[in-house]
């Protein structure tokens, strides 16, 4: 036994899903104005990239893609930590939850 082949659809189909996820996430980041939903859309973009990384790792039979995906997950957790900190800070200062109005970051 030489090892298991990939069953079901080919890697290209997974990467197609990843491309759609990245596109819809980019649309959400650009169009939506609530910072919470912008953060959620950013998560979708990161997950699209993760799916592409894992699909390519499976295609090449190489583990580096999965390692990279785990690193991306750590970066996403960090980004959520800081982003939600910003949202809570906005809420405490009673600023509007609208990324269009937050044009300056000076305290």
């Amino acid at each position: 036994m030489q090892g298991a082949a990939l069953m079901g659809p080919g890697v290209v189909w997974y990467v197609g899903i990843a491309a759609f996820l990245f596109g819809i996430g980019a649309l959400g980041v650009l169009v939506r104005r609530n910072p919470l939903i912008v953060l959620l859309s950013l998560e979708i973009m990161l997950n699209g990239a993760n799916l592409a990384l894992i699909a390519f790792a499976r295609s090449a039979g190489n583990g580096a893609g999965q390692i990279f995906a785990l690193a991306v997950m750590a970066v996403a957790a960090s980004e959520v930590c800081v982003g939600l900190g910003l949202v809570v800070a906005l809420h405490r200062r009673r600023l509007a939850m609208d990324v269009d109005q937050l044009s300056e970051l000076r305290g």
Partner: protein
Amino acid sequence: MTVVLAASGGNVVVWAVWVVAGFACLASGVAVVSFANPFYSALALIGNLGSLAVLYLLLSAEFVAAAQVLVYAGAVMVMFLFVIAYVGPQQETPWKGGPSWQTLGAVLAAGAIFVEIIVVLGLKAGGRLSHTEHVNATFGSPGWIGRLFLTDHLLAFEITSIVLLVAAVGGVILGEHTKRERDDLAGQR
């Protein structure tokens, strides 16, 4: 003969699982972007992450799928839901009524990204991507990932820990800063 039949039956099952998980993934992705209420968006994102974990399992990335469910659907989304509950319901307009030039530009940009990726895929699909390597049973298992992390990718592992530390410090500073300013305001009064 039975082996071939069993293999094709497994293939059909994998296809069915892929179709369900892929459709759930795309639909929940659209739902996250289009819901007006952030709470519903966060719930849809949990569905998105779950179906992505199924896709990771199909790609024999068991440890990444488990970490996805634990870290994302567990920790990160609970934090999101806490903050959404803390901030409370927001008065916000979901999509602007008419497509202003900003929205139109955003849709064009996102569509351009999608089309670019698909075109590049179409150009490359006849070559290396159509050939998928055979992998061992250990591919994607926790022990294998751990060995890779501590041998070949040790630098990435350590840098990841530094990134998490910096983010934690940043979160603490963001929270503490606003509290101090509020105390200053209270003292001036």
